[in-house]
């Protein structure tokens, strides 16, 4: 889809980008990562011709980008700039509509597209369309930045630290949403970050840069399992086994959860099942299958009083969604001192659980799947 061939960019003395070559296939997310000043932004800007390389060529869908007029080229590449850069004097809708307007779309199709994108990014069009950027929170502004880049439905997306300016919690949520959207849209994405966790979570391929050169280009799994040299090893850190867990989503490693509906004749059920139950604890749901809490079976058998043995919980606090990563699951287990975490769907219904033993198995295997 896009190919860089020995690209070099020199500023008077400094070589910001040095003989870089790589290609990104259709529908892939390629993450450029490296310390500040290693040339990430420079590479991105050469791809949409905001900078001209000193030497080398770039091909998009087989066509040398120098054959296109820069403005025309840019209108066909989605671009999220490093500092968001929403236009403060334009409403959210106008911001998103900038490229479609440049491309001469009709007013109606721009409005329709804007609403579609706001929906896609989880923002209510009625509420947000007419807001000005000055009134948006950091996370909302980043979402609008992404929506603006997606507006004209470009096949290629350049994202320069698109989630850089939000707190870690919001950033994680944005990453999850972005992956969901990407699964639907299948864009070719070049994504810049200096957050390794973000790279591991999102990338099909990671390109690790240092002082303008590629040090290692690999899948996240490989980079974590086989760092090429000391620099990479230091970069990925001593906790790479832990980091690798961020590659796996809870949904793929669900175990069946033993859950009982509180409405049923619970005492009888437990007594019947007793021998088959391995755990001391049992998830309890309501009639709709929504997680309510857990039951300490031993305490129950000792006293025969459900309320005594039942711990009621807020599902959002204790359970995980299916799109969380195993890394988050592990963190949750460690912080709560448990070896199993319930997993729920959007409506709080219990759909399974994730077990410490599963996670252990994965960290021990070299490459699962």
């Amino acid at each position, binding site marked *: 889809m896009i190919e860089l061939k020995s690209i070099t960019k020199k500023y008077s003395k400094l070589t910001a980008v040095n003989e870089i070559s790589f290609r990104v296939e259709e529908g892939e997310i390629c993450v450029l990562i490296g310390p500040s000043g290693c040339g990430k932004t420079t590479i991105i800007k050469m791809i*949409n011709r*905001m900078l001209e390389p000193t030497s080398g060529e770039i091909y998009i869908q087989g066509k040398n980008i120098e054959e296109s007029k*820069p*403005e*025309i*080229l*840019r*209108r*066909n590449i989605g*671009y999220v*700039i*490093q*500092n*968001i*850069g*929403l*236009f*403060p*004097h*334009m*409403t959210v809708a106008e911001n998103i509509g*900038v*490229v479609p307007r*440049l491309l001469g779309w009709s007013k109606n199709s721009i409005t329709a597209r804007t609403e579609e994108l706001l929906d896609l990014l989880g923002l209510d069009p009625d509420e947000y369309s007419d807001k*000005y*950027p*000055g009134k948006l929170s950091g996370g909302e502004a980043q979402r609008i930045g992404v929506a*603006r880049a997606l507006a004209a439905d470009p096949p290629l997306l350049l994202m320069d630290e698109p989630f850089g300016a939000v707190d870690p919690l919001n950033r994680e949520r944005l990453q999850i949403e972005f992956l969901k959207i990407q699964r639907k849209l299948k864009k070719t994405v070049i994504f810049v970050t200096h957050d390794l966790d973000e790279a591991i979570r999102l990338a099909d391929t990671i390109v690790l840069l240092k002082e303008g050169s590629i040090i290692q280009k690999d899948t996240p799994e490989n980079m974590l399992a086989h760092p090429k040299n000391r620099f990479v090893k230091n970069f990925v850190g001593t906790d790479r086994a832990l980091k690798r867990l961020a590659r796996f989503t809870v949904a793929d490693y669900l175990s069946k959860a033993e859950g009982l509906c509180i409405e049923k004749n619970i005492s009888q059920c437990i007594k019947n099942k007793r021998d088959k139950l391995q755990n001391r604890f049992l998830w309890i749901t309501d009639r709709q299958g929504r997680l309510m809490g857990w039951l300490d079976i031993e305490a129950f058998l000792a006293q025969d009083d459900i309320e005594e043995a039942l711990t009621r919980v807020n599902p959002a606090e204790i359970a995980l969604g299916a799109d969380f990563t195993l890394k988050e699951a592990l963190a949750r287990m460690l912080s709560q001192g448990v070896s199993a975490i319930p997993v729920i769907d959007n409506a709080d219904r219990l759909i399974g659980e994730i077990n410490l033993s599963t996670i252990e198995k994965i960290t021990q295997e070299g490459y699962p799947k």
Partner: protein
Amino acid sequence: MTEARNARVDRISILGAIIGVFALAAPLLVQKANRLASGTPHYLWNSNSVFALLFFGFLYFIVFVLTMQRGPAKMFKQKPRVILVGLIGNIVLVASFFFAGSEARRLAAAAAPYARFSLGAGVWLLSLSGYMLIVSAQKSVKAGSGMNLFLSLSGLALFIFLFGTGAFKDLSIMQEYAARKERFFQEVLQHLRLTNIAVAIALLLGMPLGVWTYRNQRLEKPIFAIINTIQTIPGLALFGLLIAPLSLLSLRYPLIRTLGISGIGAAPAIIALSLYALLPITYNTHIGLKTVDAAVREAGRGMGMSRREIFFSIEVPLSVPVIFNGVRTSVVQAVGNTAIAALIGAGGLGTFIFQGLGQAAPDLILLGALPIIALAVIADRSMFVLTALITPKGLKV
């Protein structure tokens, strides 16, 4: 721009009210037997107009109550208090002239036919007091809002209305006016014409110059050095400097002469005035563009906007408030500077000022100076409103 958030009656209004109270003890009018004789003062308290004394006393009492943060004033919210103070300021401003006018009428009926009544220190101090109350109130009212405009101009409007009804006609300044009524309006028009043409030229020159210096960093220093130097030449000197070359030109080239351009008159005045008006416009255009967030400009470029599109749909709208602030400064300055134009025969309200200076006739000076102040206030306020109207909505937080 000022914000309305911390609306509160502040110290300026207290000071204004104190000045006003002292002003009540100063002479309201000075009576002279003729234009040159020395005068006898008339005071508010020994005039028949005890009512006036009570009237001002009552207004200042209210201002003092409103400035208190405890006690009976607590019944009112801060915003209405501020507005009330501003309103009182306007009333004081007009009332001081009104009472002087009516007192002059009463005294004139009994005095010798050539007696003159000029405005005493009391009127000026009361106006200053009223002005301070208005300024203090205005700071807390959103710039460009209807209320702000009302506070700025209601007194002035009432003043002009009273002027029309002849309420001031026994004041000596009005006698100067009555003697040259036609001339007065001609000079007001001429004043406006000079100011407007000068500012228009400064706009046509200054805005492109601002854009140009912004685009070529290398030009920034030399160009601003020149414009700054012009600004520091004293007004009269600049007019003088232009006389020689323009006279020469008009003598050398008959065409220029037939256009009405010569060393004195409107042409050198307009040139000098536009040169003065140039700096705020050029500078603010330059700064306005320069302070547009680089990320926003980058975004525009990255979206595929051409240079032209970036200029017109990003850089210009985002720098409009700053540019218009510069224009406002230029206009207000130009209204004042135009007074000097009279010295080289260009006319305008300065004519009366310099005549008055020549004849040691303070009333004649005032006939030139007061309308200039009024014009400056009106220009300032209308530019404020225009700026508020034209500022993109997203920039007003």
